[in-house]
């Protein structure tokens, strides 16, 4: 299917039209995200914004931010103690992440600036454990044969 551009995923220059404090905060956040992108490119260091720590953002600021960042190509779902939804925004390297608990209540909502969200990468310890477990499986399978 052809990719349909909507207002939300065209990278446009935002001009503030409202006096709402939520929108002002959302604008500040966009500038902050912009600075995080620069840091990511210059140093490889990721950046995370915790939207729950910003109650003053309000519903209007939240909607504004979400709409302006839009949706990109990648979406992922993590199933661990309740699910997590990860969505790339229309801006490559900017990810919108929502963690839920088992009752589908939102635990936290983040914007992460990274090449790949930290939580999508398999943690090193878990990889070491699977190396051991897989070799056990191979051992069992060899004995059975």
């Amino acid at each position: 299917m052809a990719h349909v551009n909507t207002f939300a995923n065209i990278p446009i220059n935002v001009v503030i039209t409202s006096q709402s404090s939520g929108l002002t905060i959302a604008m500040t956040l966009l500038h902050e995200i912009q600075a995080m992108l620069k840091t990511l490119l210059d140093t490889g260091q990721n950046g995370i914004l915790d939207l729950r720590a910003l109650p003053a953002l309000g519903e209007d600021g939240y909607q504004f931010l979400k709409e302006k960042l839009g949706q990109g190509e990648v979406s992922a779902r993590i199933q661990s103690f309740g699910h997590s939804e990860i969505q790339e925004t229309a801006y490559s390297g900017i990810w919108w992440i929502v963690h839920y608990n088992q009752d589908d209540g939102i635990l936290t909502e983040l914007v992460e600036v990274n090449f790949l969200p930290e939580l999508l990468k398999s943690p090193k310890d878990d990889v070491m454990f699977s190396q051991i477990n897989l070799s056990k499986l191979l051992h069992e399978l060899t004995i059975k044969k």
Partner: protein
Amino acid sequence: MSNLSKKELRNCIASRLSQHLELETLNEISYIETLGDRLANSGVSRRSFMKYCMGLSAMMAIPISLMPKLVEAALLSPLTSVVYLSFQECTGCLESLVNVFPNTQFKTDSIENILLTALSLDYSETLMAPSGTQAEKSRTDAIAKKNYVLVVDGAMPDDKGGAGFFIQSGKTGLQLLKAAATNAAVVVSVGTCASFGGLPAAKGQNGKSPTGAISIKAALTSFGGIYATKKVINVSGCPPIAEVIAGTLVYWILNKKAPELDSNLRPKMFYGETVHEECYRKEFFEHGQFVESFDDAGARKGYCLLNMGCKGPITHNACTTLKWNQGTGFPMEAGHGCLGCSEPGFWDKEAIAGQGIGFYKPLDINTIDD
């Protein structure tokens, strides 16, 4: 993941530790269980634990970008041992804490249960299975170790004269507290009784607490020496909100230090503001629209409860932000004012000096700075 042997886990952790020059390498002979071991043994993936901590980061005022590093270091550190002692208390605080694990009878894999996995609860009279001499032994063993977190609920009867208000296996409460505090890294006083004396310290007819109850901090100070300088965190409230108790413990697990405290030794992240500051009835307060009796027209319209004795403006707690019962609501939403339960002396406090004690006695509006 959970089918790894202890030895395999040990080797994994040892090799990970060797990559972290700033962390101490483990002594191969003495087996110290790390948080990482414990989570892996319980089938909790690193990713799940990270998700849990990220969920709490806003509440604990830890910048979320610091979280991955803190979690990494915590995973490689020894499991935090908790010794839980109860003195003059009603068990409401522990009731509140176990409420942080909702629906446990249906969902043992709930994310909130991660806290139970992430701690080693080595002694708690109410929750543990052993009793009698076996229980005594668990306590002796637990407090012989070092750097555990001593959680205390209940006030301490100050019966140095031996009045016998709290005796357990032939020892007074003061003796038990002193022994348990010796090797503790930090003492967490859970509830207003432990923090400030609470109900047991309320004045009787002769103007004194019948049992001479004092706070845990006051008891430690009376021992002098290392006890007087022991780090104490007061998690007040009657009872404290479950997430506040849990958040204080998780903060310790991640940072190995106490959060910033206010002048009453309460974590500022939870007690920094009064419940009045975030109360949804504040607009009515500002417009001078008050409930004058519990069934009047103002009560039905949800006016401010100040004149019904609400102590919200002088009470520091997280009720209106974190809310109660897994975020369901808080007292003013149910139409009742704040009793001021998280403040020192709340049972005996006079709303206006000389006007007598009472939860329904209103504060003087002129003394409320807003």
